[in-house]
């Protein structure tokens, strides 16, 4: 690593970089996490990516991380301190870190930043996200087949496009195989809060839901389903295999390791440029956890076939005809959604009840 002098323009403070001396030749990679690394979901998988970077590069790399960093002013400080400590590349792994990442990146032009799930880029800020909605399509298919009460509960986190996309994708594919299916959606307004998630799962089960999908990161809904006995769940962000083969019948796994290794390599080679990455099952960023034997063999076969079709691009999870909730046409027969619309998705598809809170 080269010794460098940083000029934080806003503060106009120049810092001679003594800290770099003991990190000679090592590429220092920082990670800012929104939850604890032991959340068993979102942050857990990002941390696995970090460990994969360490395992892959060995002595050539040093990683640091900070967990449970609140979004907002605190995250800006954490990132600045990370940059000051000599990090060459910093991954900020939650949507709410978007503006802070841009602010800090402007002060440290020599440090590369990678922001997950956002949309603001800069010369030294890349964005990356995964097409989780592809996994949701497979989940929706299995859920539609597995439900006996025709009621599917959905624990949503925040009303942002990523979450809305997941709800729509799951609903479309559940409805396709089970026209009577109904979705009940609970907005938990958290990414990780086992108590809240357990309450939400309990409420959904009491309303008669026998399949629960979640876009929150803890295993609390799995535990609630296990206690109820007859409720199907899916692992979210991480495999959550400890709840298999039932209630957890499958999962969406975020696999960040290949991307992280790629990007660290790019920094080492000096080939890093600001990019926008949105990969799905095909590129391996989204993986489907093993579908357990609790799922009938024919359903499992259909799900795997859909996984292959999504992977090779022969099928798009949003293929028309699809109407918006108000009945207007969104996608005509055979038309597929464009990335721009998907990225900013703020509407439900036809058949979903209730409103997106705002």
């Amino acid at each position: 690593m080269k010794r460098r002098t940083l000029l934080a323009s806003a503060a106009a403070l120049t810092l001679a970089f003594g800290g770099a001396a003991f990190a000679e030749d090592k590429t220092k990679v920082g990670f800012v996490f929104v939850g604890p690394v032991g959340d068993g979901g979102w942050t857990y998988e990002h941390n696995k990516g970090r460990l994969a970077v360490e395992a892959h590069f060995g002595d050539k790399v040093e990683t640091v991380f900070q967990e449970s960093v609140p979004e907002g002013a605190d995250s800006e400080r954490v990132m600045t301190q990370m940059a000051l400590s000599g990090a060459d590349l910093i991954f900020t792994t939650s949507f709410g870190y978007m503006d802070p990442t841009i602010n800090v990146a402007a002060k440290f032009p020599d440090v590369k930043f990678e922001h997950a799930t956002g949309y603001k880029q800069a010369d030294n800020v890349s964005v990356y996200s995964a097409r989780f909605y592809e996994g949701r399509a497979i989940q929706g298919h299995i859920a539609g087949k597995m439900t006996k009460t025709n009621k599917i509960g959905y624990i949503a986190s925040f009303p942002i496009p990523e979450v809305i996309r997941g709800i729509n994708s799951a609903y479309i594919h559940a409805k396709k195989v089970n026209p009577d299916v109904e979705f009940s959606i609970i907005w938990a307004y958290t990414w990780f809060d086992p108590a809240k998630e357990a309450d939400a799962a309990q409420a959904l089960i009491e309303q008669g839901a026998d399949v629960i999908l979640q876009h929150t990161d803890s295993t609390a809904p799995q535990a609630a389903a296990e206690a109820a006995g007859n409720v199907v769940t899916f692992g979210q962000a991480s495999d959550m295999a400890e709840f298999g083969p039932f209630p957890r019948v499958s999962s969406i796994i975020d696999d960040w390791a290949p991307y992280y290794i790629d990007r660290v390599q790019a920094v080492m080679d000096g080939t890093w440029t600001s990019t926008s990455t949105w990969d799905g099952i095909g590129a391996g960023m989204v993986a489907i956890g093993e579908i357990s034997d609790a799922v009938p063999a024919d359903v499992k076969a259909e799900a795997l076939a859909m996984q292959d079709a999504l992977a090779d691009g022969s099928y798009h999870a949003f293929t028309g005809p699809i109407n918006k909730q108000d009945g207007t046409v969104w996608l005509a027969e055979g038309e597929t959604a464009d990335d721009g619309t998907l990225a900013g998705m703020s509407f439900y598809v036809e058949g979903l009840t209730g409103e997106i809170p705002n």
Partner: protein
Amino acid sequence: MIRLEKRAQPSKLWTLATPFVAVVLTMIVGGIMFAMLGSDPFEAIRIIFWDPLFSEQFAAYSRPQLLVKAGPLILIAIGISMGFKAGIWNIGAEGQYIIGAICGAGMGLAFYPAESFIIFPLMILAGALGGWAWAMIPAVLKVRFGTNEILVSLMLVYVAEAFLASVSSGLLKNPDGMGFPGSRNLQQYPAAANLEIFQGSGMHWGVLTAFLAVIFAYVLLSRHMLGFQIRLTGEAPRAAKFAGVNPARIVFLCLGMAGALAGMAGMFEVAGPAGQITIDFNSGYGFTAIIVAFLGRLHPVGILLAGLLMALTYIGGELASLMLGIPGAAIQLFQGMLLFFLLATDVFINFRIRLSKTEAV
């Protein structure tokens, strides 16, 4: 046999000493915890308490950050400490902070993109009024119906959070934000931005207000009739009544002041360090301020020092977690110990330890 004996008078010495004893005990027990986690305890303690102030690598950045972090804590703690002195337990400063931020940001965004020197003062006013109004709910309910202000103000925090979620994905949502929740960034709107008064000092208008609030509270409590009435209400409510203090007035005053200060803190935060209204804009300042208020002995100068100390443990804790890989939970535990030891050693203010051979009856 060890037993506690009530002192005839609260000990002056211990009143002053317990915060320091608590800090030292926290260092010792926290150090043992860090050692058990496999980190060098001396290095960890040094990073937490020393490096943010004096490390070559970080101090130039983290020293101003101390003010940024301590500002809202002090401002809120000053407000609620008045109530605590009068026996009015406003636990819901977090809610008043949120509503103040929403009102302040809303006022600023209403003018977007106009540029005028009047916008920022109007935002401060809106923030203060918002927090005040939110605090008036438990005040009115308490005076009119005798409800418990602890419960009402606490519950209103959750109402405020729901309201925050609503406006950040609705009313105040950035029209250019591609459908994502969160308001425009006020840092990029010069007329509404809460900038540093001196570049690189961390001293933004909110920090200045916090310092002014400390002076104001000090004068009020020690030199003014109203301050006397507040203290009297807390220490001897019946005597206060006989002395002609109107309890309803004290309730309105204490809750109102706390609300207004918390609201201003929220406004300064959203217009400055945070920049925008987002779904989880609040990060617990309103609750941490309760610790600050007690750590500072409900005394304005004490609160000033306690706020700075708390900020130090936050920033130092972050550094320790970054440099040594100490888990975030351990840092929180460390901060929790501080309050625990403070409360535990507080017992020596009113009691003394007696060692006696005979069994006490």
